């Protein structure tokens, strides 16, 4: 599991995507050792944070967040949000320290993830009325906590980021999602986790349009400094559209159509192929997403390079759209190494 919001939590694995069956060359080499999907393997802070929260050690939690930038805070909160049974502990901290941004945001994030687990990531017509009621009740609780956080701390970017997710789950209009993002961007114009959240809302499955999604992804990438992670937005938007296709062939054809192919190449040049690309928060998801796109495009050499840079680390990235994320990651990796050389 990696740091991008679109990867790990069930929050964004609820897409109404088509499941695409990938076929493989029977003459594959011996299976590779299983990659390590634990985000703690790449980021020791995540391991420490999860231990501190599970152990109800608030001073340790606070210390981990102390002085961190908004991107780090967002990633850390994201990695804590799916921990089971820490809600009561967080409630007690919120009660002790009313008006503080961090405990309230952590609590709200947990409520969102709990709600989304109840909703499941199935299509809306496969989710029962009771599930939806509970899901919405959790999201409303989270939203009201977050309203309070952003009212007191309008520059607390991570709370705005989670308010993008609640806006999506609570069925608010596109204009409200955009307003929330604008409030976030006022303080952090290149905040990738927030951009990934808004990108989801801009997709047709959440009431947006492909045009809006691609435009936003391109604008964010072009505005951000080269060598950063923001190219992943362009690839994510294209994968979202490609995976709406009924067959892998159509998905591949879409990704290989000239403007899309060019867009992905440019995104790679500005991020994973750029000499300035750094393995900071979220890098596993960025490389994983590019690897998946290259794999679907049949560019196994490019895919293999990304898998190779990931080393023994795994990332859910968008592999969950194709079935079990762990299995799909390994299948793509095996195929890339088999057909694209280097391992």
């Amino acid at each position, binding site marked *: 599991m990696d740091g991008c919001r679109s990867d790990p939590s069930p929050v964004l694995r609820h897409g109404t995507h088509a499941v695409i069956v990938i076929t493989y060359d029977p003459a594959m080499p011996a299976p590779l050792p299983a990659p390590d999907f634990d985000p703690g393997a790449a980021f020791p802070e995540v391991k420490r944070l999860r231990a501190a929260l599970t152990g109800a050690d608030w001073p340790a939690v606070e210390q981990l967040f102390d002085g961190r930038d908004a991107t780090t805070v967002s990633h850390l909160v994201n990695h804590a949000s799916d921990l089971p049974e820490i809600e009561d502990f967080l409630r007690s901290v919120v009660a002790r320290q009313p*008006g503080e941004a961090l405990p309230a945001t952590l609590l709200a994030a947990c409520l969102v993830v709990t709600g989304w687990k109840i909703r499941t990531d199935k299509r809306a017509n496969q989710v029962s009325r009771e599930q939806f009621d509970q899901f919405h009740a959790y*999201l*409303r609780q989270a*939203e*009201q906590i977050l*309203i*309070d956080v*952003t*009212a*007191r701390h*309008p520059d607390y970017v991570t709370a705005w980021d989670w308010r993008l997710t*609640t*806006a999506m789950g*609570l069925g*608010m*209009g*596109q*204009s*409200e999602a*955009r*307003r*929330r993002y*604008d409030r976030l961007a006022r303080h952090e114009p290149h905040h990738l986790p927030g951009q990934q959240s808004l990108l989801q809302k801009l997709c047709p499955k959440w009431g947006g349009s492909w045009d809006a999604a691609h435009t936003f992804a391109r604008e964010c990438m072009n505005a951000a400094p080269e060598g950063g992670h923001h190219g992943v937005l362009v690839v994510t938007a294209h994968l979202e559209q490609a995976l709406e296709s009924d067959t892998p062939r159509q998905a591949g054809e879409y990704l290989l159509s000239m403007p899309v192919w060019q867009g992905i190449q440019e995104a790679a040049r500005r991020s994973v192929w750029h000499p300035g690309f750094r393995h900071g928060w979220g890098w596993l998801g960025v490389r994983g997403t590019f690897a998946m796109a290259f794999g679907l495009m049949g560019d196994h050499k490019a895919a293999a390079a990304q898998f190779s840079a990931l080393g023994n680390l795994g990332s859910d990235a968008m592999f969950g759209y194709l079935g079990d994320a762990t299995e799909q990651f390994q299948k793509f990796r095996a195929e890339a190494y088999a057909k694209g050389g280097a391992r």
Partner: protein
Amino acid sequence: MIQQFEVDGVPTLLAPTDGPMQAALSFRVGTADETLARSGITHLLEHLALAPIGLADYHFNGATGPAVTRFQLQGSEQDIADFLAAVCRNLHDLPVQRFDLEKEILRTEWGSRSPGVMDAVPLWRHGARDHGLASYPEFGLSMLKPDDLRAWASRYFTRENAVLWIAGAQVPAGLRLPLPGGTRHPVPTPSSALPSTPAYFTSGSRAVALDAVVRRDTAAGVFAEVLERELFRSLRQEGGLSYTATAVYEPRDHEYASLRALADALPEKQWAVLGGFADVLAKLNVGRIEQSDLDAHVGKVSDALGSAAVHAARLPSFAFNLLVGAPNLSLEEYRAELKQVTVADLHRVAEEVMSSALLMVPEGCRADWAGFAEAPTRSTDALPGTSYTSIDGNGELRFGPDGVSYLGPGGPLSVPYIETAALLAWPDGARQVIGLDGIGMRIEPTLFQLHPDTVRLLDDRIPARLRVDMPARAPEAIPVPAPVQPVAKPPLRPYGWLAVVGLVLSGLATVGVGGFALLMTLGAFVTEEADGFIWGLVVFSWILTAIVVLPIFLIRRHHRRSR
């Protein structure tokens, strides 16, 4: 300075003005004193009082509000003396010959008025009674008789229940206010139709609006200005989401005031305006109030208080306070209070606003996510009674000993007889029952198979004073049940060539084999020598017939299913 004295027993306020002389005679009566079934009585009386003056060349008007009715004029001393005396006389000596004409004018006025964005707010907060009646049409006009108006005039339009203010140098010479004696009537206690607040309701207008109830004080007035600044900054300047963003503080009675705010929205920005509006309220509610907003407002008001026109400008609110029994502050007292308002005071007002808030949101939006409860659009229970199903089968009416209910999609609508605000009755038998909580239902006899006596029994249950006879409807305005549409089966598509070949071959084979089987059977019965072999052949030929006929059934079944 505002001077206070009496003219013919009417408390009178006088303040100098630079401009032309103005005066207003106000009475503590308005729509909040009425009932739905007789609503419009104050407005009709106000019109009748002004009707005989209509042709004179005065700048005058009358206004009927929820708690105060006002007659106002700008003109010379003589004009004012004549006008006020005429109003007082007309109120108690009604020009009955204009009675029906003025009713028509009022109906036209209602029909041609431009509806205000927040017109519906009172009924959602208060229901179909007292302060909620401002939302409703003047249903009672058709039922009002001259005696009703005379009684209304002698109850409310008295010198004890009036206040006069004059902006001018002195009281006009010879001014007389010939009003009968009576008593001062307090403002009716507002009812509530909201089980809990903060609450919200959905409206068809493209705006987000807030209605809150706050205790009257100087800080609450300042808060309205601070709220307006916040809304303007957040929704217009920063977000570019709204054109209009306003907030108004308006005293309601001696103790409480309404605080109302409004922000308009383009259709595609409605959610963002709602979100931004809710965030502004949240910001103020947690006490993040800009000292600079407070200072700017206090500075602006202090400047205005220094102008020569300030005393005349304060006359209407002074008069209102006298009428509703609220204290009036001198200019110095007000200035001192204004200076003492702190951000903490405004925070206290913000919390009051939030706890009493009623939010109006555009269609398709909700506000439950921000902690606002949905205002009721249905009754909690259905009342027991005799049940009649609608002809289209989608609803059920119940007439019971205690009230009437409608059960349809979305939940029950119930009006207990003792909580009826009005019964609208059409000559064709249609009825509309409106409950005091604002929930009601239309009973259309053409849409239900009602027992002929049902409507009469309903009429008997509801007191005559709540009945409103409505004018006859055009035949096309009377609803008819939707005819039951026969569900047409889609036509069968023609058989394909393969099916045709199959049918023909199978048919021929059936005729051949079946004919053989028939002949064999007949033969076996008529021949005495029929042995086991012959009978075996008979059975075999029938089995064969069944086999060759089978394709016909299979092809036909497949064809029907694939229609």
